[in-house]
């Protein structure tokens, strides 16, 4: 009983943390755009949190650069379980157009276990919403 209530609550209240690991801002402004009147994800219970401790889902954008790698790991470790990682944008999935760069490690999955990949360059806000919904479906 309690289990199913908790599952319901998790589904209805995914708080996200956004970290740009080396992206071009394209996906980042689309993530920020989610909060604003056109998309307003608060109607889905999604809040953009400031502290890793409060977040459930880590939204990562951009290819992982060498300098942001450690920080990415640390932010993931600071999040309380249960937690999920979303790779937003083609750069986050694989490195995208920046593949082969000397300072680029590739996608987020080079550093963290990624739960869902959302391709797009940049991702449309709808695609991110659909990605989060898909992730929550999987969790259930």
């Amino acid at each position, binding site marked *: 009983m309690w289990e199913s209530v908790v599952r319901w609550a998790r589904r209805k209240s995914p708080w996200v943390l956004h970290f*740009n690991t080396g992206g071009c801002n394209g996906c980042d402004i*689309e993530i920020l755009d989610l909060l*604003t009147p056109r998309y307003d994800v608060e109607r889905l219970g999604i809040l953009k949190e400031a502290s890793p401790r409060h977040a459930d889902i880590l939204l990562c954008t951009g290819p992982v650069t060498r300098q942001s790698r450690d920080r990415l790991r640390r932010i993931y470790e600071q999040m309380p379980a249960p937690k999920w990682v979303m790779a937003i944008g083609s750069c986050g999935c694989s490195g995208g157009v920046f593949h082969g760069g000397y300072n680029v490690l590739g996608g987020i999955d080079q550093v963290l276990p990624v739960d869902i990949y959302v391709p797009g360059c940049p991702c449309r806000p709808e695609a991110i919403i659909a990605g989060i919904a898909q992730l929550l479906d999987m969790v259930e």
Partner: protein
Amino acid sequence: MNVDSILGALREAFPAVTLEFQPGLLDETFVVLSADCVHPAVRLLIERFDIRHLSTITGQDRGSEIELLYHFWDGRGLTLRTSLAREDSHIATVVDLIPGAAFYEREVSEMLGVTFDGHPDPRRLLLPEDWSGEPPLRQGDSAQFAEQDVPSPSIGTAIADSGHVVWAKDTGRMIIPIGPQHPLLKEPLSYLLTVEGELVTDESLRIGYVHRGIERLCQQRSYVQNIYLLERVCGICSHIHTTTYCQGVEALLGLEVPQRALHLRTLLCELERIHSHLLWLGVFSENIGFTTIFMYAWRDREITLDIMEELSGGRVSHAANVIGGVRTDVDKEQGHSILGRLEDLERQIETFRDVIRHERSFQMRTRELGHLSFEQVRSHCVVGPMARASGVDVDLRRDAPYAAYDGLDLRVVTAGGGDVWTRTQMRVQEIFESLHLCRQVLKELPGGPLTVRAPRRVPAGEVVSRAEAPRGELIYYIRSDGSERPARVKVRTPTMTALITLSEQLRGINIADVPAVIGGTDLCIACVDR
């Protein structure tokens, strides 16, 4: 700028040295001189001709030697070219003459292994601290990073970097880290602020978290692929990047781009400027805790996004430019509907203008803050709205018209306040000017083809291409060696100049004002780091 008199003066100053003058493409003049002449030549330019604006320093590996290009600007481009020995290359710094050159020199230094003698702060700028490979822009070197697995630090590691208290109880000083992950920053940079009470007494900046090595990648890709790569230097001002790049390559190819294409480029540039300024207004308002303006600004920004998507198929990256023209078109009916939507947008922006001018709490958080004087702006080579808000009347759209700006009626907005409040008002005022330009373009859109055919190989040569991005002067240096791939692409984005002034703006202010000051400079770190 009178090129002849400058050349005469240089020749007079260095009678023993052979100077070489090369007229370049896009109204640029190259002066070749030896390395030890650079410092006196820069001094001469400043003292005799009051040419203080150093756009950037390009370094490139020419095989046998390292070449440095000092790109000056004063209504026309003037580039000092000098060569250094490949081994143990060093040159005197110009930071003592132009404080704004500090970041340029640091970048050249780490990218090409050049030492700038006398540089006050020769730390790395973009490369990671643990970079152990060769300077990445030296040719032939593999530019590979020695892979070493850094052990993952656990939570609670009591270092400043991790966000835990670093605190000297006796002095009451505390170090507050801002970034790389911080709600204030939409993109990573790292500030360590030393605060006493609530006042910031010292700061230390670290960038490079989004350094993707785009300049190196450009050398590995074809001219066509580079359009899309350079579009992703920055997601906010993607179109101006491709515009500047394409007009440079077109100059190298000697292409005559159709007028219709130039007008459409201009239209997208101005829409992008509106989008960028509104985005900034929103983010800035959120920084000072004014969520409602953030929501409204981003709501109305959607109008420009919709128009841009209609024109190009992408909300943020447009992929509208190709070498030799554009890939997008507007028909009569569409133009009409766009004009209508811009009208709606203008009404909304009038609201913003009034609110930021009169709303008491907004003023309390922005006035008398982050002040930059006219002299500071000039000496730090600050560009764009930041410079114009301090009374420097500079705008490349008027001073060196590119695309279709030549035939348009453009009013440059300047103001004398120099504080965050002035910058805010200025940027909002610029939106009106951009709307005015959009309307002109849509009404006077010439007919004709959209593209001319461009060959894939670009003849050998070099070009300095400049444009006015939403944040100010954007400069590209492109050199071709006659192949399908550029031999060097150098990008200097406007935010880099603003970033240098930030440390002066931050010292001595309240921590609560840090978001306002950082927000007020309209940083774009993805642009700086590349």
